């Protein structure tokens, strides 16, 4: 390859004083951080804190208003869409809603990048698709269904199968656990940790799921209003700053201000029983 050999001591992904604004409204403000090679980094933050925006910046889907974004040393912030293909070949992205094409079956969805990006035979493509479905714990018969016919957990796994289809080195996951039942959460968690351990994938996860975060993350990037904090999950959990450690509390009641919690819920009606029987 003509490209310089990757420097293995260097972080896989680096963000250097990156700002992003939508219609003059700043969402990311001079953020500097890095994602180490072969590690799992979890991005935590309240909703609207710019987590998805950050992932989209890393993938080159949107351009920062200023700053540099280095993937393996290549600055993607300045690259035009047509020059991004070699960088995107290294990146797999698991979108929050799956982002599978509604009009194609699961099998065609998975085959699409293979048909478009490679010259493999249909038989070989079929084999790879079945293999990837198997890797995420799905039967090959799922390939015949449309994305709309899948449950949330199955859809997320198919989306994961597509994200890892072309063997990316970097996997970006936007809220991979949200809206899933506990068993599906465990399954996705296991798949992600396997990809990291067995294939050395660099993984960046946006998540609200604290238990999974603590189990999976080598590092945590916490996006707070006006600042960002990096550290190991244990470190941040024990941090003296309540704004930081508060994110890891499973029991929220003690960390909340009393007035933030409704203490009494007003009944809608004086005699709900009567209203119920009158209607019946």
């Amino acid at each position, binding site marked *: 390859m003509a490209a310089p050999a990757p420097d293995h001591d260097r972080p896989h992904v680096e963000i250097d004083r990156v700002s992003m604004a939508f219609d003059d409204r700043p969402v990311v403000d001079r953020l500097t951080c890095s994602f180490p090679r072969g590690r799992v980094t979890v991005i935590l933050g309240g909703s609207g804190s710019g987590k998805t925006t950050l992932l*989209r910046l890393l*993938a080159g*889907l949107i351009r920062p208003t200023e700053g540099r974004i280095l993937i393996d040393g290549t600055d993607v912030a300045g690259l035009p*869409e047509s020059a*991004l*293909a070699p960088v*995107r*070949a290294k*990146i*797999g*992205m698991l*979108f*929050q*809603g799956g*982002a*599978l*094409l*509604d009009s194609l079956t699961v099998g065609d969805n998975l085959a*699409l*990048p293979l048909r*478009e*990006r490679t010259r493999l035979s249909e038989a070989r493509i079929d084999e790879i698709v079945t293999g990837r479905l198997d890797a995420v714990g799905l039967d090959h018969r799922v390939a015949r269904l449309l994305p709309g016919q899948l449950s949330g957990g199955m859809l997320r796994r198919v989306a994961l199968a*597509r994200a890892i289809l*072309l063997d990316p080195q970097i996997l970006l996951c936007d809220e991979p656990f949200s809206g899933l039942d506990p068993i599906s959460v465990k399954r996705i968690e296991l798949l992600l940790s396997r990809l990291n351990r067995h294939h050395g994938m660099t993984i960046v996860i946006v998540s609200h799921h604290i238990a999974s975060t603590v189990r999976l993350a080598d590092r945590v990037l916490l996006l707070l209003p006006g600042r960002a904090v990096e550290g190991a999950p244990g470190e941040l959990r024990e941090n003296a700053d309540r704004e930081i450690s508060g994110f890891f509390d499973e029991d929220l009641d003690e960390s909340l201000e009393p007035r933030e919690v409704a203490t009494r819920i007003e009944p809608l009606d004086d005699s709900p029983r009567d209203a119920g029987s009158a209607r019946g």
Partner: protein
Amino acid sequence: MRLLDAIRELGFRSLGVVAHLGQLLLFLLSILRASLLPLRPRRWLEEIWGQGVLSLVIICVSGLAVGMVLGLQGYNTLVRFGAEGSLGAVVGLSLIRELGPVLAALLVTGRAGSATAAEIASMVASEQIDGLRMMSIDPVNMVVAPKALALTAVMPALSTLFILFGIAGAWLVGVGLMGLDGGVFFSSLNNAVRFEDDVLGSLLKGLIFGALIGLMATFRGYHARPNAAGVSAATTSTVVVTSVAILIVDYFVTALWGFEI
């Protein structure tokens, strides 16, 4: 200082319109550039089939209804001057030159144009477009260009279909109901219509309106805000803006083509 503010506001607005037209032009260029590499004849045929089928029924029914009304109005007016023999010419020329292309374009805008905008906008909102970009598949090449080209290609055909059903409707009323002679109806139609002027002009209008619908619908869909409100805004604005644009463009095409009176 009110006046100054108003003038400044007007300036900003006009700059906005110019910027918007510029974006539209750039989008058109990107469609043209992306449509060829790689060539996707199967996607194109799928879209041409889909867009055509979507509007087929409303085009036929509306064409028939409009033709019947024209037949009725035309007959009742012409009979006062003893000129009911020209019914075929009157109905045929107004359908071929104006009503066919314009009404068909407005119907296609409401049916296929809005559906196209909504489909692309919801692909934006559900990140399907970004998913394609992550796989280094150009969404303009794979999704946008086939839809825009299909709308351009089916419009002349749908407009012609509208005209044929319109003439059939007028024939039903004039000949079937009012007792006009069928031979007279068709010979007056045949003598009045000139192929190079009227028929080619009609097809040209269909083509231009189709391109307009294809461009506007895909542009609005592709640049929709990535949420449910964005999808509905893209759909509504496609119908409103395209309908008005069709009526305005119709004037200029008519004036420049120089239909002979």
